[in-house]
């Protein structure tokens, strides 16, 4: 009884006080309860893929949004993990719960290898350098087609789970857990250093902090999460192909994140869950679909330049001028310090 009472108090004091938290909880519950509402395999497929892409987009946000290491070649981590996972599964017969973590570790290693030469680069130079890596890897895939399958990719991989509903829950639960972990990282002391590096790296170094270490850590963490997404995607589709390393794949992560709200983690998730199904809906206009899609994104960003989640949050909530705690827009006084909200 005490537990229930505590839970209710927590919900009332920590969740119901802020509209965005209510929206987040409703979103999570809707995802978890979706199979009770519909067993439509197509809907479950789209939501499962959206969940995998949400991990991928959030991992880009962790690296580029929080640390300011703008990567135009994020598909590298996704692709490395995808191919590692596929090869381990196909050649050695290892199951997904083994291949996906190893694939993610391979992506971490690649994150380290990419991070080191990129440490001295900034802005567009860093962006272009990171763009080169997946293109180089794609070249390697075509140079050794017997091993990597060339343009045909590697197929015949074990599926993620025997039933679609199981695959759905694996993707959704992992997305929720991993995005929560990423969000907590950005909210931790490490996250504060990440923020600081993005805003003024020289000042951080002047404070005695080894920024090289933290930038490499960001590359590795981002690679880890993107790698998990790559492994999941490979087992979900049962193929690893060169299109996983394509420039379009890297750009998608950027578009989703910026649309949702950069440097937030949850913005990347929202961006994917709005834009990915939107592209499905736009099938009716097949020839103009991408054009319509790009126009929608541009129009939304014109009105909401910091992303849809930031825009909604700023409309629904206000920051207390005294203690900086967020409050619902309709409150007249702060819920913590009782200062008057202006």
């Amino acid at each position, binding site marked *: 009884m005490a537990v229930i009472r505590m839970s209710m108090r927590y919900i009332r004091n920590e969740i119901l006080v802020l509209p965005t938290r209510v929206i987040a909880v409703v979103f999570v519950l809707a995802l978890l309860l979706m199979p009770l509402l519909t067993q*439509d*395999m*197509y809907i479950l*497929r*789209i939501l499962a*893929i959206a969940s995998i892409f949400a991990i991928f987009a959030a991992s880009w946000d962790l690296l*580029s*949004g929080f640390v*300011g290491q*703008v990567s135009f070649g994020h598909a590298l981590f996704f692709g490395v993990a995808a191919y590692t996972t596929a090869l381990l599964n196909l050649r050695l017969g290892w199951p997904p719960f083994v291949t996906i973590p190893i694939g993610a570790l391979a992506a971490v290693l690649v994150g380290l290898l990419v991070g080191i030469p990129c440490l001295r680069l900034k*802005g*567009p130079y860093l*962006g272009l350098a990171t763009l080169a890596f997946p293109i180089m890897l794609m070249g390697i895939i*075509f140079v050794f*087609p*017997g091993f990597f*399958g*060339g*343009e*045909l*990719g590697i*197929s015949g991989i074990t599926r993620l789970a025997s039933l679609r509903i199981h695959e759905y829950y694996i993707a959704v639960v992992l997305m929720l857990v991993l995005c929560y972990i990423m969000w907590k990282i950005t909210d931790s002391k490490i996250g504060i250093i990440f923020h600081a590096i*993005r*805003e003024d790296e020289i000042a951080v170094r002047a404070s005695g902090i080894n920024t090289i270490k933290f930038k490499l850590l960001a590359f590795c963490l981002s690679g880890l999460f993107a790698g998990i997404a790559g492994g999941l995607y490979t087992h979900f*589709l*049962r*193929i690893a*192909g*060169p*299109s*996983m390393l394509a420039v*379009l794949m890297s*750009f*998608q992560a*950027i*578009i989703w994140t*910026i649309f949702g709200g*950069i*440097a937030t983690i949850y913005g990347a998730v929202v961006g994917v869950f709005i834009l*990915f199904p939107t*592209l*499905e809906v*736009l*099938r*009716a206009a*097949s*020839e*103009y*679909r*991408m*054009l*319509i*899609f*790009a*126009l929608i*994104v*541009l129009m939304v*960003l014109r009105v909401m*330049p*910091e992303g849809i989640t930031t825009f909604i949050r700023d409309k629904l909530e206000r920051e207390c001028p005294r203690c900086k705690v967020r409050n619902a827009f309709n409150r007249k006084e702060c819920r913590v310090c009782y200062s008057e909200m202006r």
Partner: protein
Amino acid sequence: MKNQLLFIAVIVLALAMVFGAMGCAPVDQEEEVSPPPDEDVDEDVDEDEEVVEFDGEIKIAVTGPMTNIQGEMMWWGAEMAMNEINEDGGVTIGDETYSVRLIQVETDEIMDPLGAVSAVENVIISEDPHFLIGGFRTEAVMPYTDLVAQDYQKIFVICGAATNELLEGRIDEDYDTWKYLFRVTPIKSTDLVTVTILMLNEVAMAVREELGIEQPKVAILAEALEWNEALVQMAPQIFPTLGLEFVGTFRPSATASDVTTELRGIEASGAQIIYTIFSGPVGIPYGRQWGELEIPAASVGINVEAQKSGYYPATDGFGDYDYTLMTFAQNTEITPETIPFIEKFVDLYGQLPNYNADTYSAVYILTEAAERAGTLDTDAVIVEMEQTDRISAAGRFVFDENHDVTFGPGFVTALGVQWQDGELLGAGWPIEWQPDPENAPDLVVGHEGMVPYQLPPHVLEQWRE
């Protein structure tokens, strides 16, 4: 810093718009296009003619890159068959008559092969088609044949991807899982190789006869892709058996816009023949530069771009005399069905049909199998599909043990086509092909209407000099 990121965002979105304008949709699309044929209003129908009322419909999903020429060809071929079948009274299954209805599925598999699976699953769930046909890019066809066969147990007839592994190693190893897959067009990769080698032999004979060179030199010019890797490795070993000397392999990118270096290398090697293996857009710059630079070597092999009506103008006429493999040619009667099919196709759609257009045969093969089975039950239709023996525009269709179209004399062979003075003509092979001269000297295969292969004039001139 955030402002910089937003600036980058605008750049990325602008790039996305460029991709969009180029038709590079990132995920799959599905769209139902064809209205039920029994609701069509045919203006030419005689008022006295009895209007057929159908008891139901057979739904066939056509999956492919519909905004590209390959997908358009798939759709047009299937549409032509659908209209013919419905106008002829539909398909009789048991005591009932069914119309055929096509569902167009835009998979966008050229740009986003992995997204194609969602489009296919969407159509299966929303429309529940009886059969599926199509598929172009192997990277896309592999996962969606997985889905169709393993998850939904529906018949899928491949009409665009040649890779052996789509059927080999599947049906022969696990029949119950993969029995749903068939291939109608094109013939499988290894058979394509056989045809190109036979075509190469024709060119070698022409070089010997007209240039007096007993052992012609051959250079391989193949796009750097996996599908042709086995062919590139195998071909040099075959050349000596044809009395040819191998001088080297050149591997440009499949999307290269300039192959001058490779062509100059071939010229320096002294080759009289270029054995081309192109499926990608590199085929057009190759054709233009080969003619423009007057490279003294005859061009033969696979050049998918050269199979299209627009190849000649795209190369400014320099692609004339390029010799490539194809399924149909306007002047060639493979079977009595060929010329009427091509003429009707050109009349309706204004373009020569390519191999993807043989979705036409696929629709007939499926509906005839259902008719023979007397049911739309998948397993019963598969049994009848396996018994298929049909004369169609591309040849005689009989499926082998892997559910692949049988290649060889009397079945489907494909043919050589050559651009001659701006016309794409069936030429060279097979005119008087003796598949087994020792054991069956009387077996001679040839198609009516084919013209002899011609060496390009600039090759003749330069070697005679």
